[in-house]
């Protein structure tokens, strides 16, 4: 039998062991009171009680803005970024699902070089959580997309090593782990969300109009979504005759998203919301029929006008919430 229980008393030392494998990042609270994944210099900075960070871990793989190419005398070269080994500690199951989805998109046919470079140097240490009112995930995926997973139980954690890397870390921490369970795990009811019928985007649900009227196109829902990855590509020449091409998170709720020279295929906000629904809950080639919503609840929490596209998946006739 594996030694896989970590007592709270051993936690700080366990964290120090993680540090041997790379730069340690984890959930912390910023000066202004925002939960964020950031570098951790002292285990006491870790906020294991966090519910969700404002920006999901996708920022470690797909930064908001990054140079992808540079050119000189007309010749383009791939930009190289120095990426350190990062141990990302305390990632909840929904965010692990988000990374699994991004992996499908960016590591599929012809892996994206920038993403792949970062992903290869990212070790994920998952952490169990207790859902709040915004959460609707389907729990830990099988198999989970992480190297180690820590389940809170009693006065410590159950530690599961789920990859070669995870086993290496568990081996290094073996003196901190014990055979004896720290307590029982309470199974939680998880709802999740399944892939939706694409035709729902044309349903006569009055919410469509309501959302199209109230959405302020601030873009917060996509920015904070763990699986939104649309990007814009722009090229900037510099004064020295060379230049760079960068990519930046884009947003299907912006009017420019469906524009071509002389036309816009998603000119109205309603069309853009339908597009978001379709991509999020029905999937595009080659991930058609798959929802990328992982139930983290960020979009609803950050929306200034309380839009929750999930409400569209409930047939208004069967709605039980209104009297």
């Amino acid at each position, binding site marked *: 039998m594996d030694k896989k229980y970590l007592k709270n008393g051993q936690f700080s030392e366990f964290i120090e062991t993680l540090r041997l494998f790379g730069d340690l990042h984890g959930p912390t609270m910023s000066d202004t009171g925002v939960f964020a994944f950031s570098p951790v210099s002292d285990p006491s900075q870790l906020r294991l009680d966090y519910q969700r960070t404002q920006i999901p871990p996708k920022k470690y793989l797909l930064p908001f803005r990054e140079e*992808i*190419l540079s*050119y000189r*005398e*007309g*010749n*383009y*070269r*791939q930009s190289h970024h120095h990426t350190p080994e990062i141990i990302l500690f305390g990632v909840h199951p929904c965010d692990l699902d988000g990374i699994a989805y991004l992996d499908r*998109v*960016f590591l599929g*046919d*012809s*892996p*994206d*070089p920038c993403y792949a470079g970062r992903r290869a140097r990212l070790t994920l240490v998952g952490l169990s959580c207790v859902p709040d009112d915004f959460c609707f995930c389907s729990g830990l995926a099988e198999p989970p997309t992480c190297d180690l997973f820590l389940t809170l139980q009693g006065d410590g954690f159950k530690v599961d090593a789920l990859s070669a890397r995870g086993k290496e870390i568990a081996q290094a921490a073996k003196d901190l782990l014990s055979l004896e369970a720290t307590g029982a795990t309470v199974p939680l009811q998880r709802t999740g969300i399944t892939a939706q019928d*694409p035709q729902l985007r*044309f349903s006569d649900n009055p919410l469509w109009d309501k959302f199209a009227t109230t959405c302020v196109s601030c873009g917060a829902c996509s920015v904070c979504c763990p699986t939104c*990855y*649309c*990007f*814009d*590509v*722009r*090229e900037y*020449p510099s004064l020295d005759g060379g*230049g760079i*091409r960068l*990519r930046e998170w*884009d947003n*299907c709720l912006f009017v420019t*998203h*469906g*524009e*071509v*020279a*002389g*036309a816009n*295929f*998603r000119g109205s906000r309603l*069309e853009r919301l*339908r*597009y978001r629904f*379709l*991509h999020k809950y*029905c*999937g*595009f*080639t*080659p991930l*058609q029929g798959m929802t990328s919503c992982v139930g983290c609840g960020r979009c609803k929490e950050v929306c200034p006008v309380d839009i929750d596209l999930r409400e569209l998946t409930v047939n208004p006739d069967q709605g039980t919430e209104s009297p």
Partner: protein
Amino acid sequence: MTTQNSHMHTPFAATLLERRDLSADTALFRVAPEESALRTLCSFVPGQFVQLSVPGGGEVPISPADLPAADGTLELCVRRAGHVTEVLHQAATGATLGLRGPFGTGFPLEEMAGRPVLLLAGGLGIAPLRSLLMHLLRNRNDFEEVTLMYGARQPKLMLFREELAALAAKGGLRLFLTVDFAPEESAGTFSCAVGLLPDLLKGFRFDAERTYAAVCGPPPLYRCLIGELQKAGVEAERILLSLERRMRCGIGRCCHCAIGQKLCCVDGPVFRASELRQIPEAL
């Protein structure tokens, strides 16, 4: 990572060899890709596109106007329409450009073999269809009747018109040209019908049961032409449409070019009308 894979992301260098003006704002650019690009580029199928990089401006998707020549050079027909194409139009011969691709799904040539083919082009839509036309004419015996109907707003905006007339004169191509209107000064210099493409199609007799139709033009044209073609008896599976979207990455990632749940850069840009039936926002 193989060289081929890295060039999905990083453009090959290509030298601008020659530029020929086709109208006030559109020109044909002949580019020579670097040696190492030739193997990848010669897999080009008419209807596919390349991502053309113009240093300083950025990248635009372009459907080559012909198959790569024997020496690997490529012809790109580009209208001055934005800040990338603007730089291209100013570029001097010898300038270094970039190319990625070819990307996407082109015309189903094998399926079209042995059948009559009707090409319908509106305006700049002639550019992607020209590569299909050239393929058909070079492999003339593999296909039955080849017809091109090409409509432009007015005579001076009609691209490749002498060249098309010369191809028709050699036989093997039935050519119908039409303009929306003809200003008086052009009378006598140029002969073609005056009227809209769908009207031209209305009076046309052809073997609709067996014909493959290939359509490319400005967005409003598609609906009218699909309607006319279906009325004439061409099944939606045999109506091939080359669609335009704002492809940024070309490889199914940036998500700007979605058409319903399909991505124009991967599943298209050539779609069958039957595939688009369930996607009201496609046309």
